């Protein structure tokens, strides 16, 4: 589904080069929930951007459903993004000038023959629990509500893959739990997830987990001992598990 071979990204920073992602190999198969854990600045978001065709790798190959997205024209890579991949960003990525409903319908502008429709947008908004906020503008929404809108928008064209960059980074524990429950439900319905987080608590949601550090990525063997996720604050991560993760 998504394959990365020797993916490397080097940024020019002043006179020096910064290796953000260093020779990463990854193979995501359909129905997986791949979770990439790492500290801020470890390169996980850059990797995610490359997997979604939003950042060009310095070297290496990325294939989405067999297509080498590095060799695609702008129109073709845009089509891949519109059809194959749903994005949920860390920040509240919304167009401020249009309503919640219209934000959810935005990807339909780029994939006209897709499954997106007004009724589907309404249904998705209902599913993320925002039926009464459909006509609201993004600036009036809470962080959690914005995230739900982003999820509904990511799903409008029924993409097989959902890429999420720290989707719960700025949310309270209850909302975080609800969103992860929703992701899990979608994953159980067959959607493939690639998600990055710096929150160890979310590790149990992944069917495969990687850790990134200074651009390098390594797989964490499963199951991690004692890692559970509950709604109770400060009780959702076993101390040993955290230690084990940090030791990897």
């Amino acid at each position, binding site marked *: 589904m998504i394959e990365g071979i020797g993916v490397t990204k080097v940024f020019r920073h002043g006179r020096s080069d910064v290796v953000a992602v260093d020779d990463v190999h990854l193979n995501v198969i359909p129905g997986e929930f791949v979770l990439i854990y790492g500290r801020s600045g470890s390169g996980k978001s850059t990797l995610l951007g490359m997997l979604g065709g939003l950042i060009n790798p310095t070297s290496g190959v990325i294939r989405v459903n067999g297509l080498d997205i590095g060799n695609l024209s702008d129109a073709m890579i845009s089509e891949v993004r519109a059809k194959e991949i749903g994005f949920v960003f860390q920040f509240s990525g919304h167009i401020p000038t249009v309503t919640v409903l219209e934000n959810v319908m935005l990807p339909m*502008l780029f994939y006209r023959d897709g499954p997106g429709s007004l009724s589907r947008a309404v249904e998705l908004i209902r599913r993320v629990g925002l039926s009464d906020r459909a006509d609201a503008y993004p600036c009036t929404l809470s962080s959690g509500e914005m995230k739900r809108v982003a999820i509904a928008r990511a799903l409008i064209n029924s993409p097989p893959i959902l890429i999420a960059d720290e989707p719960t980074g700025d949310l309270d524990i209850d909302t975080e739990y609800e969103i992860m429950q929703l992701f899990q439900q979608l994953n159980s319905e067959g959607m493939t997830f690639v998600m990055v987080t710096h929150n160890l608590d979310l590790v149990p949601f992944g069917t495969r987990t990687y850790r990134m550090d200074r651009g390098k990525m390594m797989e964490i063997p499963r199951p991690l001992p004692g890692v559970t996720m509950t709604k109770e604050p400060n009780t959702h991560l076993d101390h040993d598990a955290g230690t084990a993760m940090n030791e990897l």
Partner: protein
Amino acid sequence: MSKTHEFRFFRLVARNLAHRPYRNIATVFIIAIIAGTLFASQYLMSGAEQSLDAGISRMGADILVVPERYAAAGQSVILTGTPTSFFFEDSVFEKVTRVQGVAKASPQIYIATLFASCCAAPVQMIAIDPESDFTISAWLKRNPGVVPGVDDIIIGNSVIQNVGRDLIFYGHTFHVVGILEKTGMGVDNAVFTRFEDASVMANESGTKAVRKVTIPEGMISAVLVKVLPGASPAEVALEIQRQVPGTKTILPDGLLNAVSGQLSAVTRLLSGSTIAVTVVSIPLLGIISAMVADERRREVSLLRALGATRLFVVRLILAESFSLAIIGSFIGIGTAAAILVAFQDYIAYTLKIPFILPSPLALLAAGGGALLLSIGIVGLSSLYPVVLITSSEPYMALRGGEL
């Protein structure tokens, strides 16, 4: 839940425009000034040229022969109706008719009047010979075909009186029998009577008027000439000047040049204003666009991440810019048109040019030209923002450069 049916490209454009009202109003204002100035310039030029064309074609004469020293005054009579009096011997008329290439000729006498009850300013009285005249009857708007009889008068379109009513000049009462079509030229402010009646009026003026008017015996002011089909008016005019000493001929081209000369100062001013506004506005609009573009980098990157192509983004930015250009142009052109129409007589009087409302086609051309130029300017000022936005990597712009 919203009753919105569809979410289309132009709805996004409209929403984006509505979201930045103050900046967009400033942009619209700048564009309105550019478009309005350009339109005004074209409108005045077009109105003057059409007025001249209409006036000359309705005049029906190819050449106007006047005393050698009074060419400018003769032009003023035709163009703006500035009242004047000048004379040469009536033998000129006979000589002109004998020049090769002359088909028809008709003498006229110009008499500058005082203020009359009809008019806010002195009008030009023109005495004609109804038997040889080939011009006036063709212009008649009211009572066409009428031939002026004793004490009858035909009035220009701007002279305020109706057919059947009387007008008094130099104490002599004239009866209005016809009104001419509007030409925008001097004839609009002129009144036409017969030689005989003008002579009687002049003779009576010593006792009936506050100022005596004199029409010298055996003198005329001008001869209107129609050339034979196929003959060149310019060549016939030269021949008249050669064969009839002391005369000067005025051709339509000469009138056009005179108007162009009078207009050139105005058009220079208007063109200069347009260029100055354009030169200032391109970088100004560019700066505004660049500021908006910088603000919108994340928004555009989001669209790209959701599947928008670069072309879509370019279309979006240009559609927004062109929408502002179109709105601004319509406001500018509409305002300029309203001002010009409302004050066109005053403007023409001040600029000393003949003027009528340009034809719809000319208005369309002037408006279209102003619109296209405004769109071009806006398109030019949008180039940098378009390049800026589309050249950045979407995800890095989304994350503000964070790795």
